[in-house]
């Protein structure tokens, strides 16, 4: 399977101020929460052609994934990590790869993708 190298951000606290700093370009992202053992566990992954707009939507009251919205509303030490990926099919392929790797609790359906590529997840 072809592989692509992508450049991941550090873990960033998930809040509006930090999301506002993101570009309005395409990419992939994942959300995690710090648990009592000190580790951050991934609970949601995604991709978008506009990272900033998408992530702002995710943390807003307009988020249509009610499970995700409810989980975020509970509060806690949430973080996110992102990588810039311009090609939409590559975005979808990496989102699916993350879905399979992390099995995130709040992704309700497996992302569909026609492209078979793999990226580094960190």
């Amino acid at each position, binding site marked *: 399977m072809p592989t692509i190298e992508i450049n991941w*951000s*550090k873990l960033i606290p998930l809040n509006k101020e930090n999301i506002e700093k993101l570009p309005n370009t395409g990419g992939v992202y994942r959300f995690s929460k710090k648990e009592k053992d000190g580790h951050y*566990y991934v609970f949601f992954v995604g991709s978008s052609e506009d990272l900033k707009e998408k992530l702002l939507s995710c943390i807003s009251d307009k988020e249509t994934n009610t499970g995700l919205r409810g989980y975020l509303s509970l509060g806690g030490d949430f973080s996110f990590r992102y990588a810039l990926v311009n090609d939409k099919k590559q975005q979808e392929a990496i989102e699916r790869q993350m879905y399979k790797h992390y099995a995130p609790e709040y992704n309700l359906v497996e992302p569909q993708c026609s492209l078979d590529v793999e990226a580094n997840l960190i």
Partner: protein
Amino acid sequence: MTLVISLKTKDGIVMASDSKASSEITSNDTVQKIFKLSENSAVGIAGDGSLAVYFLDQVKSGLNYGTGILDLAEQIRVKGKEKFNDFFEHLVPEKRPLLTLLLAGYTTDKVAEIYTLRSTDNFVPRKAVTGFKCIGIPYIAEYLLNGLYEDEIKLESGVAMSALCIQETGAQNESVGGPTRVYTFSSSESFKEVSPSDVKKLKEKNNQFQVKQKSRFYPEDQDAGTDNPVS
């Protein structure tokens, strides 16, 4: 083989089973393994399917259901031993087929109890000391229930938990399979089956449970990544 589970909840008793039958000459996924005895008692069977059904038909007739579950277990022991010896008097005990019953119901004081009765044990009723019991291929289900079950569980959660146990066992052992059948009853609510569509929804929900377990093994590397990623 088979998996039959019975567990006590705050609001009633749950009984659940797979539906798979297999032997050297037959295999299908539509076998009933749990049978209503009265409105407030039921029995699950593990063992040779046709023998189990015939045995139960023979044993059920003439049972008195009004004297509590322990007395019912004792009646089944007496009749079961007699019938089994009739069926297999030509065979020494170690050559006889195995049959295990999982009996659940209420005492005359409306206390839920679960018993196992085994042909190898002359059907002596053994009371479950935990709030649950599994027969057939119990190992995965008992592992899960030991970790998940609490006395305070509600009926609907008990239904979900029993479905999970059968789902997980079926995923690991091909002898357990076919549609999951789940039944509930209490001292005041009659024996009834949970609809297949509701069981299907529970299984989908259980997939999320499995998913949550996996993510626990892949925490984020907190030191990895760059401040300004580029595409």
